């Protein structure tokens, strides 16, 4: 009797997993009606898959039936696979029962497009509405925007969802046209803009009238598939940057293409997904969002691709040695942030601690910076005298030889190494 629901979950979770977004952060939904759940703050990863990705939401498709034929997608019309569809009640039951057992932070609901966009979107909206109104569920809901759905449905969806997203898929219009002729970036921009405008409008009304409901409080995100088409890292990050700016996106996700098709336009099945490249893109993304770097500083015509062997922050520093060394005891916070081996938390500690006295090597080591890496770029109270200035290639050589295991062929898809 369990078999039917197990089979559906198997198919529809499997088809949903290529959307890498797992975040359940950025919302501010409280459990005010003594219902169930809340979605505040940073969200929790309740477990990690064996590939090391955070599991915080029940990520499923409503159905994997689809009228489109996007070459990079397992659910494409022409793919000969098992199809399934959940009922509205099944999704609600699964979500509630997983949530009550502390398995998840909420639901990430997406769908293949069956019949037409509005028909699909209407079903999705029905599910989230039922969760919010009948189950009094205040957990996190990430809802996919179905391209081509009507404004009315999008607006209604926004009243129940914490986050909405719609994927760019390929970094450029040409790439997309090649693999998904039925789709376009324009189709993605339209709903992004519509929802962005509504978010702004709801926020300004809420400032005046408290009772105005929430509207997509955790904002919007998108995903770019990496390595399916031939774009450079520069094209990818410049696109990402433009979308951050034009649509106030909260996140851009980069998803290394996993070969799932024998289509001649795509990498063959069995080839390695570009995981190191994906990791480097996330690091570049962090530099833009948290470290005050401009995209042009990281990627430009001279340097159109990120280096595989060193992270983009180190790479930038080595190209700009004239800006170093940075004096830890006097330099501006933003310059300390740019030192390879120093993260946001330790940069803050440094500027706090130096108010009490000059900082020495032993302080810096204890404050949690990657000292061996950073030492090439900083001066501190007991810095050794510099006999000669090293050039970039030499420094890179030292750093690489000291941190071999970390940089070598470890397909690492999460952010950890600055």
């Amino acid at each position: 009797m369990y078999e039917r629901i197990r089979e559906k979950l198997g198919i529809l979770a499997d088809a949903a997993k290529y959307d890498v977004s797992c975040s359940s952060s950025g919302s501010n939904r409280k459990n005010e009606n003594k219902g169930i759940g809340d979605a505040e703050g940073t969200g929790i990863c309740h477990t990690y898959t064996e590939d090391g990705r955070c599991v915080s939401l029940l990520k499923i498709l409503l159905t994997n039936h689809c009228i489109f034929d996007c070459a990079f997608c397992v659910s494409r019309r022409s793919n000969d696979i098992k199809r399934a569809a959940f009922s509205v009640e099944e999704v609600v039951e699964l979500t509630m029962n997983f949530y009550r057992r502390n398995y998840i932070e909420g639901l990430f609901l997406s769908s293949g497009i069956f019949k037409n966009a509005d028909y699909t979107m209407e079903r999705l909206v029905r599910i989230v509405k039922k969760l919010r109104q009948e189950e009094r569920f205040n957990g996190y809901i990430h809802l996919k925007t179905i391209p081509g759905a009507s404004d009315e449905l999008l607006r209604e969806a926004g009243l129940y969802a914490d986050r909405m997203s719609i994927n760019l898929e390929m970094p450029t219009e040409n790439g997309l046209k090649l693999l998904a002729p039925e789709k376009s970036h324009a189709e993605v921009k339209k709903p992004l803009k519509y929802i962005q405008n509504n978010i702004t409008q709801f926020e300004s009304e809420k400032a005046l009238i408290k009772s105005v409901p929430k509207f997509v409080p955790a904002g919007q995100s998108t995903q770019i598939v990496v390595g399916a088409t031939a774009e450079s890292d520069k094209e990818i990050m410049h696109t990402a940057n433009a979308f951050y700016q034009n649509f106030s996106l909260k996140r851009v996700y980069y998803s290394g293409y996993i070969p799932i098709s024998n289509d001649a336009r795509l990498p063959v099945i069995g080839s390695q997904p570009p995981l190191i490249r994906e990791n480097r893109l996330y690091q570049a993304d962090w530099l833009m969002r948290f470290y005050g770097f401009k995209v042009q500083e990281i990627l430009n015509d001279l340097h159109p691709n990120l280096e595989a062997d060193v992270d983009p922050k180190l790479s930038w520093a080595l190209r700009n040695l004239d800006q170093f060394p940075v004096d830890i005891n006097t330099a501006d916070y933003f310059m300390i942030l740019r030192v390879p081996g120093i993260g946001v938390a330790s940069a803050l500690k440094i500027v706090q601690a130096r108010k009490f006295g000059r900082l020495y090597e032993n302080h810096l080591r204890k404050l949690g910076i990657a000292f061996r890496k950073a030492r090439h770029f900083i001066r501190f109270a007991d810095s050794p005298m510099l006999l000669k200035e090293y050039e970039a290639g030499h420094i890179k050589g030292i750093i690489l030889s000291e941190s071999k295991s970390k940089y070598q062929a470890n397909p690492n898809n999460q952010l950890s190494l600055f």
Partner: protein
Amino acid sequence: MELYIFDGSLEGLLTAVFECYQRKSRVVKLVSEIHHVPDVFDAGFRVDSDREKGKRVWKGLCRKLGKEWQLRFYKSFLSEQPEAFQHLLNFARYIIDQPTGAWENFAHPDVLAISQTSQKVHREKHRMEAFIRFQKTADDIYYAHIEPDFDVLPLLPDHFQNRYADQRWIIYDLKRKYGLYYDLEKTEEIELDSAPQMSIVNALPSDLLDSQEALYTLLWQDYFKSTNIQARKNMRLHVRHVPRRYWKYLSEKQDQF
């Protein structure tokens, strides 16, 4: 140097701080009773836990420290680590003696230690919030037991009662033999006469469970497998995020035993 021995309670620790001033002690070594190895040459000073003295010290600290550092102080205490007690005593004296703002001096060994220890305790609290798996019992209570590295139970009520406001739940610490029970109104500390053992498989006997429990455990295990991308498999990263000692909590990991 003077040796102070206290009873291991927070009140006792704060009283010890008070006594440092009262007795005009300079360097003080603080140990809790259970860690104390009696020494014929140094009987040490026995700190008598005292509510009033403890309160006065805490108030004094609160005047100097913001909410965040008050919490860090408490979290470090919950680490139950002998070194932490010493650092807490030194830290309290340092904060009281210095002008406000001294907590920003991360180059100071005790400030750094409190910041790091509280971070460890915080991480353990966060792991419990992540890794607890409730099982629904036949009488409608969601039950989970844990064996955390630190005594984090006192840090958990807010999170769980805000989130699971409309269901009754129990979180039980098997190591320290007490738990939290939320009865839809409030959360209370409880002790169970016969708490189940922490089996390697974190499961209550099936006759105590709700009839649907087996289904949802199974569906969760299925989901965990389906959402994995085989081509990206990276067990090193997996184990870094979910250290093996926590697997016993996780129903999705049950088939690993």
